[in-house]
């Protein structure tokens, strides 16, 4: 019987495919919100130091927040490595995170670790202004010196920035401007800026690539990939406008209900080491344990004064305002 032959081949292929999957000794599922490349770097670092394989999907901070919110309390992951402050604070409040007093996180500045050891800030990141060197030269424009300059009509449809609905970077950008100009003036500035924005991207790093490839002239973007893209040869210019930049943490926390508690603890331990800080600083992050920063060098950039806790509280309200303002009218 030929059909039997085919059937047996199908079945054997199936079994092969089905069995082949689980070869890792110890696997932990994680939501990770840094850029895809940086996610991979962190995964490799953890694997090298502990032997634990992290399985992860790339998502923006906002997306991880949405996912965790919708899954609670039955999470499909064991740990978060890289989410924004709003989720970190929310998780603590709702007891979605499991506190762990890690020996490796002793002596870290308070902004990097929760007083109750619920969340661990593995690295601060910021947003910067990027421009395409070649395209700017073509048009005869120079990099704007201040954020205000971005509202100039000459930039119409030439600026991209992430959407605060999905991106943690954008959430930080929005809050930074509200903090800088005060809530009312801040919204006016965002509205003026909106007139020049071509579109809002899903991820906070996307503007770096889009501007780098010359699709758009300017971008407000997360600083985490800028250094790497310049090294790769993208014609990128970056600057910190004179008003300064905002920042947010990249938070790690253990999700309640995990069956891999020991592995999760090991991961948290590793994230608190000097070696890990060195690696992250090498990418361009500001780290819990001091290390030379690849992007900013020894200088500390000018930061806008922020209260992340207050920002997290206000995020839902600001999202509603943002949707109301920037989604309802179309060009």
């Amino acid at each position: 019987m030929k059909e039997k032959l085919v059937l047996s081949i199908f079945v054997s292929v199936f079994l092969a495919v089905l069995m082949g999957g689980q070869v890792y000794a110890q696997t932990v599922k994680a939501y990770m919100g840094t850029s895809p490349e940086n996610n991979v770097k962190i995964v490799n670092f953890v694997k090298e130091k502990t032997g634990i394989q992290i399985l992860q999907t790339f998502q923006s901070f906002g997306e991880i927040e949405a996912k965790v919110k919708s899954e609670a309390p039955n999470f499909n992951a064991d740990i978060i490595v890289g989410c924004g402050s709003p989720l970190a604070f929310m998780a603590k409040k709702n007891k979605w995170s499991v506190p762990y007093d890690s020996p490796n996180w002793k002596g870290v500045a308070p902004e990097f670790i929760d007083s109750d050891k619920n969340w661990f800030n593995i690295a601060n990141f910021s947003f910067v202004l990027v421009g395409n060197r070649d395209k700017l030269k073509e048009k005869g424009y120079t990099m704007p010196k201040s954020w205000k300059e971005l509202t100039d009509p000459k930039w119409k449809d030439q600026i991209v920035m992430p959407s605060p609905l999905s991106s943690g970077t954008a959430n930080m950008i929005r809050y930074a401007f509200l903090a800088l100009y005060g809530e009312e003036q801040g919204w006016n500035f965002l509205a003026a800026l909106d007139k020049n924005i071509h579109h809002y991207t899903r991820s906070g790093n996307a503007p770096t690539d889009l501007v780098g490839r010359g699709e758009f002239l300017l971008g407000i973007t997360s600083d985490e990939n800028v250094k790497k893209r310049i090294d790769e040869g993208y014609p990128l210019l970056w600057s910190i406008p004179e008003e300064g930049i905002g920042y947010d943490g990249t938070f790690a926390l253990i999700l309640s209900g995990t069956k891999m508690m020991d592995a999760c603890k090991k991961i948290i331990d590793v994230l608190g080491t000097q070696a890990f800080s060195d690696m992250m600083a090498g990418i361009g992050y500001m780290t819990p344990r001091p290390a030379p920063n690849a992007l900013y060098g020894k200088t500390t950039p000018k930061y806008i004064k922020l209260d992340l806790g207050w920002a997290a509280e206000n995020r839902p309200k600001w999202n509603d305002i943002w949707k109301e303002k920037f989604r309802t009218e179309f060009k």
Partner: protein
Amino acid sequence: MAKAESYSVPQSNVWERLKTFINAELINILAAILFLLLAIFLLYPILAVLIKSIRDPQGLTFAYYLKFFTKGYYFQSLQNTLLLGFINTVICLVVGFCLAYLTTRGPLVLRKPLKIISMMPLIAPPYLFAISLIILFGRNGILTKAFALNWSIYGFTGVVVAQTLAFIPLAYLMIENTLMSLNPNLEESAYDLGASEGRIIRTITIPLLTPGILKAGLLVFVMTIAEFGNAAILGGRTPFLAPDTYTMIIGEADFEMGSVLSVILIIPCIIIFFLHNYLLTGKKFTTIGGKPVASEPRKMTPLVKIPFLVIGFTAVFAIFISFGVVLMASFTKILGVKNEIVFSHILNFDSNRAIYNSIQVSLIAALIGAIIGTLLAYVIVRGKFFGRTFIEMVSLSGFALPGTVIGIGYLLAFNTPPFKLTGGIMILALNCVFRFLAVGVEAGISKLHQINIEIEEASSDLGANFMTTFYKIILPIMFPAFIAGFIYTFMTAIVSLSAVVFLVSPGFELAAVKIFDAAVYGEIGLASATTMKLVAIVVLCMMILNYLTKKTGFDITQKKGV
């Protein structure tokens, strides 16, 4: 063999009686089980979406719908979506018809190459065309720079172009299938009676193809408004329902509004589904003794040939170029910036696990789907129970259900116990099974209609019980339908994004989602390389399947009952 004892010893033990009962009622038991499956995995998720959209913590509410209809934004989104669906369907049908006509009636030398290229998009994720459009027509695109073009692809037109190219093969395949089974003598008769080619197409070919064209239109419409990859990448600030739903669910966890959008999205699809069913009743033309024959190449009149060739070639050329540039991009360091040949994208193995998962999910889905599809077809055609038509409609409704909606439905329905399925691989596979079930069921039904029930009765008469009859007689006859369901589910599942994007979880990510992420993120090189790897694997799988089915004497290219 029949148990003769069961007649001579009617009061045998319970087990024997149970066995007799099962044997006699097997088809009804089967129908009940299948209906339960359909109810759980198709109706319940849709219902979950509907319920979510009209409930808030206080109870029943229409506040979310009110919000939808009072905000210009959502209305604009709906309008764009319907317009996109409409334009796309029309273009796809026209192009699909021209291509199908050329490959079945046109010059022999052109038939095969045209056919192969027209079907290429089937094996790639639909948003491949968004990537290729950016490479070619983006602000820093190859053609934009070469010809100093001023065409902004970010917006409605860009989405239309990308979606059209992505769904041409769907229209093409369906129309080609009906054209193939159209008795060529009908057109020849008209020709003989003095009709010009244009007139034949107008008065004979198209009227007779109506069922196929309607079906193709329905499918293209539903796919266009549901598959949001292209719209998400190219839409810019032009709103469309599907990507908006995606942003709402994935970005904001706004399940209520997301559900409202889903329900709104499903309405036009359902309307078209019923309209299509209504229009089709009494339109299934039968011809006497008309076997499917590839008609002889005829001299097409220039009046028809030239416009058909222009339309066909434009489409085929665009598809070919799109694949070409994506292939090129997967070997270029930074396309348009640093045009150096590199292998780093291709050799980036981060996506390997995702590709592996995709194959695994698609294979599981294809197997389960083909089995359930075959059984459903059997139950629908041969069963004599109440609600048969209902089962048929539900199982064929997969044609009309936008992937986004089913995806969200699964997320809502299977996220909490007792049906906690999220965070695993089965939810991905099951989702694909029930979304793409319709093709296998339909192929099965048409196969079963071809065979006389007397064959089965003859077999039962000879003493075979139901299982034996099914195994020995029905299964072999339905095998082509099984294969059709298997292949369709496999191919569609492996490249589809719209539903599974809501269901992936750490460790269970899929290639289609991974590519989408990379493309949205702006990593064109990586997205292109992963696409090409996926395409290569799909082609390889198809070749193996083709080889295996040929070995058993079934030519899948002929039996594809889509």
